[in-house]
């Protein structure tokens, strides 16, 4: 055991490899440092988030009046297709991969990911397939118009007759995104299995690492199914095969199975790390241990397992036999049990705690509220009779936007604010953060709540014009959408100005427990001067038990700050 305090070690220069620039320029290199790659992921993803958001605001502008007057109907089709594709494949996956990339090695006490070069290669695929998708805006015929599901036979139409058309570029981009995700998943699973610090047994691992592991296992097992479906669709489009073309004896419903076998679990790939953020953030700002830690982490794995057997609930209206619908209705209802366990545990964690309502906590609480609402509408949609009634209406759109914006984006914001001091060594401006939260929370509810009554009234999704009776709720939703656009401005201002001018952050500004808070902010290149020896579980708030054996500075947190 060394006597050198980890605190006392000056932050070593942040060079990801010998001779690399130690300033902002390092973010433009093929760096193999997981922290540089993490920030590369987050910033790249955020740029695409803004692009996807602009598309959404054009759509909301179109829907503010019942007539299709702002954009052409085919343009509208392209808009919702690209909005969905960008937001899922180029914002949520990369941003969560970025945060996991940054945090997992720090949280488990490793110096880097298991395969640093593979990690960098996986990241650099993101701008490549992003560009590929963006190029489709500028080719004859424009981007894909078949929705982010790309169901055949709609996706098999090729009005321009060109070999390079929007749908082909879309499929190539999605396939490359799959390659990148598999590379990331191999890396995360290996890192978490093999590189935990001594003493960090499975049940001493922070909940976030558990959720990343659960999510990446889904990527490994689910994504290949989508790859298989995408390869067959691509061959149908380009090589003249007839796997999914009903006119030539193919089976379009099989594509739906391939697609949803991955793309429903993909929702858990998105939401599980966000559950991890909630589990990390609530204990810190409530000053209490995570309630039912073991139940919370094991429920992540149960979600992973159950996620493999629920996909057909997207296909209740696809001519699915009724015995199958009953089976999948049952499994879908079942998945609300492990998620319910988590929600219960978070409420119990916050309950009676000494709450500190800083921006990360506000976002986490807001995200939890939205998730609860989305979970309730999710159970409603899981029920066959209800789903048949609202199938393909705005009710579905409202439900998943509460999951993906309300819970996921707010959870991501919570995580970015919470770990911002660690990543940059600077504090963000609390006032701007709270303004950002207020705008986001109001915007989410204004934008996405009206979609539920609209769906119940029967407004179909993916239409550029609608009956005037739907106008009232649509105007409210559009105003909420524009508010969400505005809400990113204080965030961008806050992030940039704080990174440049913010107050210097201490190693542990939140008095949090965790390996990442024992090292300086920002962490030196190989994170830990000496690999920590973990001697107790995470979330030991109020227990006064030391977390690591070789940290002579003792417990750094005080309950009376």
């Amino acid at each position, binding site marked *: 055991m060394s006597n050198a305090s980890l605190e006392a070690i000056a932050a070593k220069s942040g060079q990801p490899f010998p001779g690399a620039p130690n300033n902002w320029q390092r973010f433009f290199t093929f760096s193999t440092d997981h922290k540089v790659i993490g920030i590369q992921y987050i910033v790249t993803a955020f740029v695409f988030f803004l692009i996807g958001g602009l598309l959404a605001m054009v759509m909301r502008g179109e829907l503010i009046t019942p007539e299709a007057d702002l954009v052409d109907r085919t343009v509208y089709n392209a808009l919702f297709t690209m909005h969905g594709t960008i937001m899922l494949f180029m914002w949520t996956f990369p941003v969560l991969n970025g945060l996991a990339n940054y945090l997992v090695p720090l949280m488990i006490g490793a110096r880097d990911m*298991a395969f640093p070069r593979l990690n960098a290669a996986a990241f650099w695929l993101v701008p490549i397939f992003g560009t590929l998708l963006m190029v489709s805006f500028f080719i004859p015929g424009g981007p894909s118009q078949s929705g982010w599901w790309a169901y055949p036979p709609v996706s098999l139409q090729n009005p321009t007759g060109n070999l390079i058309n929007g749908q082909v570029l879309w499929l190539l981009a999605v396939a490359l995104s799959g390659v990148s995700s598999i590379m990331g998943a191999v890396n995360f699973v290996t890192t978490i299995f*093999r590189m935990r610090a001594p003493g960090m047994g499975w049940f001493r691992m922070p909940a976030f690492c558990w959720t990343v592991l659960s999510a990446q296992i889904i990527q490994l097992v689910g994504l290949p199914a989508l790859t298989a*479906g995408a390869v067959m669709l691509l061959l149908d489009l380009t090589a003249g095969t007839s796997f999914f073309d009903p006119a030539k004896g193919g089976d379009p419903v099989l594509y739906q199975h391939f697609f949803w076998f991955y793309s429903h679990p993909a929702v858990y790939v998105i939401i599980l790390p966000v559950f991890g953020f909630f589990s990390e953030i609530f204990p810190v700002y409530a000053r209490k241990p995570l309630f039912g830690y073991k139940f919370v982490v094991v429920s992540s794995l149960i979600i992973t397992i159950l996620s493999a057997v629920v996909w057909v609930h997207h296909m209740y209206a696809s001519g699915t036999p009724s015995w199958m619908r009953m089976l999948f209705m049952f499994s879908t209802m079942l998945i609300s049990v492990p998620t319910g366990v988590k929600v219960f545990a978070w409420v119990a964690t916050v309950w009676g705690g000494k709450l500190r309502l800083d921006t990360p906590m506000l976002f986490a609480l807001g995200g939890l509220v939205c998730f609860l609402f989305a979970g309730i509408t999710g159970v409603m949609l899981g029920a066959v009779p209800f789903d048949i009634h609202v199938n393909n209406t705005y009710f579905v759109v409202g439900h998943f936007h509460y999951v993906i914006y309300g819970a996921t984006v707010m959870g991501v914001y919570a995580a970015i604010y919470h770990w911002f001091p660690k990543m940059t060594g600077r504090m963000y401006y609390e006032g701007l953060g709270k303004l950002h939260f207020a705008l986001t929370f109001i915007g989410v509810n204004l934008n996405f709540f009206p979609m539920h009554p609209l769906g119940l009234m029967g407004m179909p999704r993916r239409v550029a014009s609608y009956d005037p009776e739907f106008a009232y709720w649509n105007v409210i939703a559009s105003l909420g959408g524009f508010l969400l656009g505005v809400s990113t401005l204080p965030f961008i201002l806050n992030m940039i100005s704080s990174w440049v001018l913010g107050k210097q952050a201490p190693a542990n500004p939140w008095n949090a427990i965790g390996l990442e808070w024992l090292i300086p902010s920002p962490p030196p290149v190989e994170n830990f001067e000496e690999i920590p020896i973990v001697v107790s579980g995470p979330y030991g708030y109020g227990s006064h038990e030391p977390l690591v054996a070789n940290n002579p500075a003792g417990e750094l947190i005080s309950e009376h700050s």
Partner: protein
Amino acid sequence: MSTANLDPTLNTHGAHTAEHEEEDHRMFGFIVFLLSESVIFLSFFIGYTVYKTNITDWLPAGVEGLEVREPLINTIVLVSSSFVIYFAERFLRKENLWGFRAFWLLTMAMGSFFLYGQAVEWMGLPFGFTDGVFGGTFYLLTGFHGLHVMTGVLLQGIMLGRSFLPNNYAGGEFGVEATSLFWHFVDVIWIVLFILIYVWQ
């Protein structure tokens, strides 16, 4: 929770450098990758099964069925090569480099024979890639598997070349082990494929 609960199976080589740790984890990572890769094949197999059981006029007009004799010979050669590569690996572990090279080269020859047989079969078939779902799935499955065999033979070629570098391969080598594991994987996939396509007609 007891504080003495230090699991001995956990990673305790914290003093090693990041480069060193990468060496240690490659096999684990490769196995994880193969698990994922097998799901692609599994998806194709399930797709094939669904098509085969649901489509009424499965075979294209004028096609009676598939010839089994040559593919069976091919199968026997490919499956045997899995044993040959196992012996090659054992020679390497005993540091008998020439034995390793001989058996390794034999594996490559058997893999190439398989690819050759596959090509001959493809050229003699009365249906093409675009002849209905049957033609599509047949060429997709055999072609995708064939790509893997080709990758395996290429990897074997690289490993053979590397064995001539001085002081290489002392005490086993990740590349050789991974190539060999990949070869077994390709083999097992072929057995399932053979049963699905040729035996179940």
